[in-house]
């Protein structure tokens, strides 16, 4: 007891700079409706993203005590029926210049229009290639990998394994079609062949079960690997072990392409997995990872430059000087032409991390991370 007291005394007197610079970051999100679940055992996570931002804030403040900087996070979680645009306008009026946005693509686009370049938006939710290659939001940084980046990562691995003949199974949502588009682009890019494409119809019939339905659905096609596009997870999990031919499943289920995964432990990842679990009481999801990186990116720039305005921060983030440690063994940086975070993609099975593309041998003249997704010459966005 006495010993502990002594330690605490020492702690309190250790040299800690008093904060002089206060950095205000906003976090804007909206409540979600719980989607249909495949399993009643998997809980719906309400605060994906926010917990990552809070961990990033904590890390920034640990550093800040030595640099005289203190970070604050203003949380704006709009209710299900609430008005996101109004909330954003309020943030702008209150002078927030750094806004972490956890909203779907259409809503992000709406904010972009209101913003008119005033604040820097850090998008931690979308994976749409259109935002990154056609709409070109100059005020936005995208932290999560796009669908094309994910598909290219899968394609690199399938090429390496010589799984050349793909059977593509697509769900009925708009997102599933976009994912399938990315897969088709990757197949073309890496010279692979889509031998069949089928849409999963969700036709409910009392006489049919996954056990009998999947074999019939997959019968009569000769393929190396089944690629599934089911972003909501409504049927993809049923395919493994039930297909007519014994073939691996890859894509949104089976071997998945993701920014973060619970099985990832290399390059110091164990440390952040543990830190996150202690803070949030659950495993880190990819939106949490994105929000963590968003807040850490800001911290990294502000530590080094002491500047806190959107313009200076954006300039530094998009410059060659910015390098972020993201627990994936390679320095992360932003693509200057579209604000996409360059990063390795994790290909993970439920209990083991298989590989983290870009894989060896896929070369690029400037940065091998740019072998994933739309490269500068393919993008309509220019610096």
């Amino acid at each position: 007891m006495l010993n502990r007291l002594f330690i605490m005394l020492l702690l309190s007197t250790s040299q800690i700079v008093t904060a002089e610079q206060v950095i205000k970051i906003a976090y804007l999100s909206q409540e979600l409706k719980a989607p249909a679940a495949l399993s009643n055992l998997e809980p719906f996570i309400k605060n994906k993203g926010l917990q990552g931002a809070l961990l990033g804030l904590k890390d920034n403040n640990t550093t800040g005590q030595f640099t005289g900087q203190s970070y604050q996070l203003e949380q704006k979680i709009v209710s299900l029926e609430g008005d996101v645009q109004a909330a954003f306008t309020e943030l702008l009026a209150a002078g927030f210049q750094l806004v972490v946005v956890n909203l779907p693509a259409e809503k992000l686009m709406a904010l972009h229009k209101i913003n008119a370049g005033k604040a820097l938006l850090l998008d931690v939710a979308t994976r749409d290639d259109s935002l990154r290659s056609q709409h070109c939001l100059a005020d936005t940084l995208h932290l999560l990998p796009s669908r094309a980046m994910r598909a290219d990562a899968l394609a690199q691995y399938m090429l390496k394994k010589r799984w050349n003949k793909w059977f593509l199974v697509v769900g009925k949502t708009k997102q599933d079609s976009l994912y399938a588009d990315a897969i088709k682009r990757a197949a073309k890019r890496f010279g692979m062949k889509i031998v069949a494409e089928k849409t999963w119809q969700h036709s409910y019939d009392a006489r049919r079960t996954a056990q009998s339905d999947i074999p019939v659905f997959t019968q009569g096609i000769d393929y190396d690997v089944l690629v599934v596009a089911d972003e909501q997870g409504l049927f993809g999990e049923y395919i493994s072990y039930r297909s007519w031919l014994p073939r691996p499943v890859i894509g949104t289920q089976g071997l998945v392409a993701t920014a973060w995964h619970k099985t990832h432990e290399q390059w110091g990842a164990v440390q952040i997995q543990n830190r996150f679990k202690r803070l949030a009481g659950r495993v880190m999801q990819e939106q949490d990872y994105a929000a963590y990186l968003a807040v850490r990116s800001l911290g990294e720039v502000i530590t080094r430059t002491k500047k806190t305005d959107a313009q200076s921060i954006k300039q530094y983030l998009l410059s060659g000087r910015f390098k972020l440690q993201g627990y994936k063994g390679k320095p992360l940086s932003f693509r200057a032409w579209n604000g996409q975070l360059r990063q390795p993609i994790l290909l993970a099975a439920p209990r083991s991390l298989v590989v983290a593309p870009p894989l060896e041998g896929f070369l690029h003249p400037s940065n091998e991370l740019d072998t994933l997704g739309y490269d500068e010459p393919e993008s309509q966005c220019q610096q």
Partner: protein
Amino acid sequence: MWLKSIVLSSSLLASTTIYAETIFVSLEKDNAIAVVDPIAGKLIKTVAIGQRPRGIELSPDEQTLYIATSDDDTVITVDANSLQVTGKLPAGEDPETFAINPAGTHMYVSNEDDNQVTVIDLKAAKAIATVAVGVEPEGIAVSPDGRWIVSASETTNMLHWIDANTNQIVKNTLVDPRPRALSFTADGQQLWVTSEIDGTVMILDVASKEITQRTGFQIGGVGAEKIQPVGVKIDSQRRWAYVALGPANRVAVINAQTYDVEKYLLVGARVWNLAFSPDEKRLYTTNGVSHDISLIDLERHRVTKSIAVGRYPWGLAVKK
């Protein structure tokens, strides 16, 4: 000296076998240490030691082996001759790396999960202070005169200079991203620090505590992203410095006077940490992913042998 060597040899006689030199290697995923005779080039035995052993050091008198068993949240003391565990130190949560002052009286432990350094009085086996540092402190080193303890925080990207007399931070130096290992030169004038993410080794002037030199690495046929410097050692004459380059699977040989990289030595996969033989004629490396250690002849700068030791060899300590 004469008396000391008599004591030493008698204690060696008491143990079962005598080797000219012994390497102890911590095996992160085998929960054990490997005992290697580098002269014979052989793995002698593997001894179960505790959960997830990582940092490993010998006391200055070489009689005690200290091993951080991270998942047991302790640093254990082991009799370096009998390899029996003799005690546990209150090292704080998840200890990974630590450093011992030259006098052998104090140990400084990085607690990666708690963002602190724990100071342990080794004689009393008691934690006497904790120092709050940046996020994920890992590399730690004590200056040859015992005055400075430098802790590197991997995510804050900072070196914290702790005064050994007061256990207080007196200066912070911002460095390249994800600083890993650090090593003082024997004359105490320089501190060498590796940056895993930037692929550099930085050389700091201890007097000013600023970076004065930076060396990068380029290896034909090996991508820049594979060059992730970790362990660094400088010989006592400050003629050569050696840097383990992680997944580049090589050790860089740097002229410590000109700071030019003169050679790259191919060792095992994901080379992590380094240790000299007592006479500095050999350098030993732990190769994390190929589960072996490499022996390097420093007179010819050649890799002479690799020895399979067990799963995920992390660090090593060498006993005369």
